[in-house]
């Protein structure tokens, strides 16, 4: 029935939107990074639900199962998770340096201090 067929994708879309909203609207830099994380994780969920075959077990070849889910999205998402954590680590390092030089992590303060000097 329709709900089970596309429920996954709708949740993915809603998560994506919450993530994007956080990145755009929230002024705090750390909140933006969390938003970015939520946004990226939603894409991972989308890829994995694309790869799922009902009744298919984990793609580890064994005598027990015959139907497997699609291994390719899993590989892609492994790389994407690594990319996600790499970006988060770099972003947090940037936030620390911004905190040291600007004294605040609020976008508002940074813009005002930038325009002053």
């Amino acid at each position: 029935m329709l709900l089970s067929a596309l429920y996954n994708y709708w949740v993915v879309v809603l998560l994506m939107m919450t993530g994007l909203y956080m990145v755009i609207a929230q002024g705090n830099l750390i909140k933006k990074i969390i938003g970015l994380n939520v946004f990226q994780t939603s894409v991972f969920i989308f890829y994995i639900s694309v790869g799922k075959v009902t009744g298919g077990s984990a793609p580890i070849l064994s005598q027990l199962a015959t139907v497997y889910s699609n291994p390719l999205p899993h590989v892609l998402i492994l790389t994407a998770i690594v990319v996600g954590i790499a970006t988060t680590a770099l972003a947090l390092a940037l936030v620390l340096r911004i905190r040291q030089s600007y004294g605040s992590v609020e976008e508002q303060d940074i813009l005002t201090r930038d325009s002053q000097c």
Partner: protein
Amino acid sequence: MLTHLPILQVILPLVAAPSCLFLQKSRLSWAFTLLVSLAAFVVSALLLQQVMSEGSIRYSLGGWDAPWGIEYRIDVLNAWVLFIVTGVSTAVIAAARASVESELGASRQTIFYTLYLLCFSGLLGIVATGDVFNVFVFLEISSLSTYALIAMGRDRRALWSAFQYLVLGTIGATFILIGIGFLYMMTGTLNMLDLAERLPAVESSTAVLAAFAFILVGICLKLALFPLHLWLPNAYSSAPSIVTAFLAATATKVALYLLVRFTVTVFGIDFSLSALPLQSLFILLGLAGVFVGSAVAIYQSNIKRMFAYSSVAQIGYMIVGIGISTVAGLQATLLHLFNHALMKAALFLALAGLVLRAGGCALEDFRGLGRRMPWTMGAIAVAGASLVGMPLTAGFISKWHLIAAAIDSGFWILALLIVAGSLLSAVYVWRLIDAAYLQGPDKSLPEQGRNEAPLGILIPTWGLVLANLYFGVETSLPVTVTQAASAYLLGGAP
């Protein structure tokens, strides 16, 4: 050895980057980076020559053939962009030593060169690969290293612009990832050519349309097309001068290559034009980019920021070229890709010399520069003339082809608008020349003698300037290559 050229092109800098971390002395790491960049340039020249003679090359990684393993496909378009990126990188790194030493201090040199090599290999990886997901991975490598490189700028604004670029860049890259996900879901493959074959079957579904829209927005974010260009001026003006020189001449070019590759090869030009009103969209956005970019550039006091806005304008020209979407239009874009790389690399290297000597690059530093640093100012003047599109310079050739392409497809008004845009760029170049040569040195400043930029920066800068002039007169290489590329992409030639 020749069969492994495509992979050597990317692996050489990729493996060189971690090994560069072991060389602790800064002069050694600079020499190592220069050597690697030169080797990459030689490889790309060989590759271009091979592709021009034998047609496109396929190289399957890991021995698995196309849709299952990752495949490198080098056709004239890839080879051309690879040639530009490696050439610019060699010139920029040749001039990098003095400028990087003065702007970054001694301790951070080795890390700077390692990050530079990573960014360089990331860009090459994007251009050389024939696999859609591989593009995303190498896009991330180049973007991450770019954020880190920009954040190494001297004043604190570099940090803030790096953070802004990171957020926008990550959103762009994730949009591309969503697009790839949709494509994979509808066709089941990740190889570009395989996608091109299987897409027409599912073309009508909105999922493919959404994939096209997402990938387009993602790339335009990376490309700094007009409405999405806000990160570029801050990033380029606060980054170290050598980084700006490299990025201005290559990063947006690679994004443009991606745009051409996706709209033409993967989705097919007729689908791209029918799915979204691409032609009018690109022409409008391109022209808006030209006029807004040039207009804002005129009122900038920081010259690096001024040339950053002019980059936004020049990208607008390239997008207009694609918007015309005829063989001549695409050729004009590919030509401007090459010429713009030459101009901007020369301009920003000259600015690096100025920043090295005068400590900053505001308009006041330009007063009486004609006497203080004649060679650097000469380079800026000639490269500026090329930017404006004066005859006998490379800029004129690409302007000429753009106008010819516009008139050829009947857009007379577009031709006039393009020319008006180049006049706008004449205004802000003229401000520099006027300040440097024609205004007398203001009396308040002590009369400094002539303190020219170090030879290390001057030689590569003038090398690029002479290339600008040479390719303004003897255009057989760029014209034949771009002709072959656009004929191959749009004209259906083999």
